């Protein structure tokens, strides 16, 4: 009898296989089975015929993404925003994590951390209201301050160019506390002896951060970046929708795939077109994550995801 092969493996580690079974089952049912629905992207969906019975219609469903040349613009915007947000929010999170872990007073430390964490719990709907009340031309906080100091009021809603930065600031403000938790955990797990040794050698705070903390949390940073890159084609729909809403003046600079699809398809019941948009995003995401992972693997094999 052969002592290798799947059956033998199964027999040898049956307890392990049994333990992993629920997880495999769950992933299969929740993630693999629904994938068959992807064929919807290539179908002319009819309610009475169902997903599998509806007639095929080739690439027709994808056409609306690229009609009038919007497809490229929204893809570019989506990638640009995600890169910007990725870099700024992760950079700020590392910065905040190091600051907090260097703080001395225990109460002060905890209070600061909580205050920074708080925006995470504020929904985008409320943030959208904040934004409108700050930038409103007639009654907004910004223009009231400008007028108080004798300046000319500015109409921020007619300047699409500044919106990437506004969105970036609010995104960082909301996520920095949440993201920093992971880095704080990574910093806490660094061996205290390293710092003691550095103290004895006469290293100052900045040297300790640069030569001990940063190298120690580098794997965490890379993993976090890789995980975020996988979502790069998915705009944070709620954020864009609540901050920019239906203000067409800003679309050139703020429209991402998700908001475009939402607006285009809100008024028809074509599931095929929605599926096509999501298919397009998924395929691009897949390509990007494979490429980025390959690059990481080439540079530093240990840090790659797979």
């Amino acid at each position, binding site marked *: 009898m052969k002592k290798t092969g799947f059956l033998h493996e199964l027999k040898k580690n049956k307890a392990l296989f049994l333990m992993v079974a629920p997880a495999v089952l769950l992933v299969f049912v929740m993630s693999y089975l629904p994938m068959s629905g992807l064929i919807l992207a290539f179908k002319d969906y009819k*309610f009475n015929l169902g997903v599998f019975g509806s007639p095929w219609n080739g690439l027709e469903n994808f056409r609306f993404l690229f009609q009038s040349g919007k497809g490229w613009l929204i893809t570019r915007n989506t990638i640009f925003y995600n890169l910007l947000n990725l870099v700024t929010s992760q950079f700020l999170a590392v910065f905040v994590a190091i600051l907090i872990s260097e703080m001395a007073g225990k109460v002060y430390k905890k209070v600061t951390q909580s205050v920074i964490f708080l925006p995470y719990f504020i929904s985008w709907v409320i943030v959208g209201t904040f934004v409108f009340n700050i930038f409103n031309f007639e009654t907004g906080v910004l223009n009231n301050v400008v007028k108080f100091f004798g300046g000319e009021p500015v109409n921020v809603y007619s300047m699409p160019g500044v919106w990437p930065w506004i969105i970036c600031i609010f995104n960082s403000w909301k996520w920095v506390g949440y993201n920093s938790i992971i880095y704080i955990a990574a910093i806490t797990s660094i061996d205290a002896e390293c710092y003691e040794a550095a103290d004895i050698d006469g290293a100052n705070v900045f040297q300790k951060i640069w030569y001990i903390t940063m190298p120690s949390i580098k794997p965490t940073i890379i993993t976090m970046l890789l995980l975020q890159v996988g979502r790069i084609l998915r705009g944070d729909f709620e954020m864009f929708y609540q901050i920019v809403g239906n203000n067409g003046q800003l679309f050139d600079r703020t429209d991402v795939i998700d908001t475009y699809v939402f607006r285009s398809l809100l008024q028809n019941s074509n599931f095929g077109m929605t599926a096509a948009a999501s298919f397009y995003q998924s395929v691009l995401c897949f390509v990007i994550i494979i490429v980025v992972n390959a690059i990481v693997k080439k540079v530093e094999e240990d840090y790659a995801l797979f």
Partner: protein
Amino acid sequence: MKKSFRLVALLMALCMILGVFAACGDKNSSSTASTGSKASTEGSKTDDGSKAETPEAGDLDTSNEVEVVMYVVSDRPAKQDEIDENMNKIFKEKLNTTLKVNWIGWAEYTNKYPLLFSSGEEFDLSYTATWLNFSSLAQRGAFMELDELWPKYAPKNYERQSQAALEQATVNGKLYCIPTLLPTYSSQGPIYRTDILEGTDWDGKMENFDDLEVYCDYVKQAAPEMEPLNVYSSGLGFYAWYLCINSNYKASVGGNGVPCYFDVTEDKPTVKVDYQIDQIRPYLEMTHRWNEKGFWSKSALSDTDSQKVQGGKAACTIHNIDTYEGRAIDYPERNFKYADFRKDVSYLPFTQDALVVSGTAKNPERALALYDLITSDEETYRAFYNGIEGVSYEIIDGQIKNPDPDNYGFSACWAARTPEFNLPSVGSPQVVADLKAEWDNYIKEQDGKGAARFASFVLDTSMMETEYAAIRNVNQEYWLPLELGFVDLESGLADYQAKMEAAGIEKVLAEMQKQLDAFCESHPAK
């Protein structure tokens, strides 16, 4: 050896569990929706609509009790259970039927409503409307066709439908919905408060756009903290209204965000997109002037507050007479007035409010019979639509009132209203009833001329969905800021035009023209 068999058995068991999971998807929904209707439908397990032939003409077998399931879109009132219990007593007695009404809340209807039809859930009736994408859903096969069922099981309702209503309910040659019997009017005009201008020398005239501008000027002076016009993120949207008053382009085709119009006085009208019509310049000059005068906020397109008139932050909104009725009842102290600038009023499509039978319906016959009863018998109607007398409604001098709106509400199946059962609300200004009577007369006099001739024209958009999606985007991105005067008139208009062309407006116009020409063939001018 024995051990590996056990393992194989285990794996097979796993597969079976998996199979059960996979099958759950369609089983679950059917078992929840059909409780109570099991007994009734022997032998009709297919839902392809072919069961219409099985029962013999006209007589409905009501020997077994049936539960009809209906979906409506609105928030469920707190004490709806009491109303349901009361109406089911009457339904049971008259038709041996009970009705279960499921409510889809305002917060979730955009997602949940189309999913009703794609999930395969079994239910009988649903409210539908033009704004719920009735024709798009019908084209995609979501509803049961009613050509035979409706006249057979809801004959009283069917007989009362107008020719125009029947044509509006027809998609690809088949009837798919039961339109409302209650007409609504194509009126649109300013609903403006007059209390803030008391004590000024404003002459109170409101007959055209110039008067509206004068009114807004006065509001600017008398109540500077208020915005004269209620404009928010959905834009201004006056153009169709402007055309109705200042041109013969009184009929719009295309629906929301696809602004195409044609001249109703012509025998064979040509469909034009908004910028091809001469009125575009005077209109945009007017709105640009209004923007400079500050009739709306420079940030209006990011303002999501649509209730500024109710909240006292705006003085005037442009809407229909039913909205006016509501404002006048809710805020008598603000002395709201309504003016309709246009002379040529017609009925809105009756599919504005309508009822559909789901493609998955188990008891379409009984459901239609029930609906026939509701729309023809006053006791049944009151119990269904208004609830319990003295508790959820009171009738005072032919006007109706809900004494406890926190707990009770009228039905959200607005399609069930009929001209004789639908009563005005208590406190409704006399002018509302007068205007409606005047319009009814006018429409009768017109006798199908002008805009009325095209009332039953329904556009089939199924072959231009891609262009539609692109055009709606252009409309939002380029037209709304242009219309509000936020971008330069000349360059903005040129830009808008170029983007519309890129989005495929030519193809859409050609298709509309084709369908309209075919319509004109079959509906010649009187």
